[in-house]
């Protein structure tokens, strides 16, 4: 298969790779860049475990055709902490308020929450719930995830 060249900004760094055009953004992140934080929970955009932020908007990386990523800005869970390793307030809040259990949905969940807080620094509960309604979690019943996001918003 003829590969395509992609060059984009990944967590603040300019990166490039040669990948098959049939790869999704998720596969590219996991295989070409060894960033395995984004997970494949369903592979067809129905669970949100693969959520990353592209040009300020969340997408399901599992159905995002990678040739489209050329020239764009991608943020993944690995890019949330700062370069010194200080956690994003959301990451801290998830740990402190049991917003994480098995953790498989967590990367995507936090990215959806990050995107929400970037657009709306003081969301109400409905807005939080809507923002993460594309991210399925089986462990928590969402209660403490919603609390974690609320607390992170208030602390920021």
């Amino acid at each position: 298969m003829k590969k395509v060249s992609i060059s984009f900004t990944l967590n603040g760094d300019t990166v490039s790779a040669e990948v098959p055009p049939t790869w999704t953004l998720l596969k590219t992140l996991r295989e070409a860049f060894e960033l395995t934080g984004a997970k494949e929970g369903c592979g067809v955009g129905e669970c949100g475990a693969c959520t990353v932020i592209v040009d300020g908007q969340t997408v399901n990386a599992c159905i995002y055709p990678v040739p489209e990523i050329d020239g764009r800005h991608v943020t993944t869970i690995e890019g949330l902490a700062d370069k010194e390793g200080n956690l994003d307030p959301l990451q801290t809040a998830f740990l402190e308020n049991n917003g994480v259990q098995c953790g498989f949905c967590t990367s995507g969940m936090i990215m959806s929450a990050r995107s929400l807080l970037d657009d709306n620094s003081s969301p109400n509960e409905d807005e939080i719930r809507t923002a993460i309604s594309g991210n399925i979690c089986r462990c928590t019943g969402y209660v403490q995830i919603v609390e974690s996001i609320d607390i992170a918003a208030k602390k920021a």
Partner: protein
Amino acid sequence: MIDYEYLKPASLDEVFDLMKKHGSKAELVAGGTDVMVFIKQGNHSPEVLISLRGLTDLCYIQKNSAYHIGALATHRMLEQSQLVKEELTALQQGSSQVGSIQVRNMGTLGGNICNAAPSADTAAPLLVLDAVAVLQSPEGQRRVPIEEFFIGPSETVKKNDEVLVEIEIPSEMGRFKTAYCKHARRQAMTLPIIGVSVGILLEKDVIADARIALTVAAPTPIRVRQAEDFLKGKPFEEGVLKEAGEIASSPECCMPRDSLRCEGWYREEMVRILIPRVAMAAVEE
């Protein structure tokens, strides 16, 4: 094995050239939220994907003598547009219930329509809003009322050399009060069991004009003209709306099927129950 070439034309002319060159081996892809899934599941296996994402000039929502929505406007744009929310309410409600935010950030109105799922969340609102699909080919443009656009599940009148470029909605439809109800088992990331959209044009308390559209009630999204005609000239009151629901749910108007997601009798019942409710919601908005 999934294997295709992914082409990224930057203009419509390029798109037409590529479509001509690759013919039936090629498939158009916009947001990819349907096409990529079909490919992954093995239901589609195009040799060439022609991406429309480069056509950034088709990504607009405008109002002048009519409402114009570029085919590449995303669901999220429609969801967040104040204009759409206020004047084309049902469409805003439909768009805001497609998939998840992630899907709405990627998926486009044009894609939703061209995919022609009997359950498409934007279809019933567009029917209610008398939308017109603007199709372009190298030979020029043609305009197809959305009601004639769908001809079967996943089938439309769009020809192989055509690209859906715009959805146009007549400006007078902005005077209608419209609403859409997605009836589903859960509140997000789901397909409707039944979709009901109603548009009401009130003059004083009389229904001057009405639109009723349904999804998942037939192989394509449909309008229910008998019920619309019944409403015209009648007072806007519960009994009248219920009667419209009875008419719309009759076998002459809709023939919902039993499916995995729901039994036909229940869908029919929901048409009856929801039409008056959606009409009320439209006017109360």
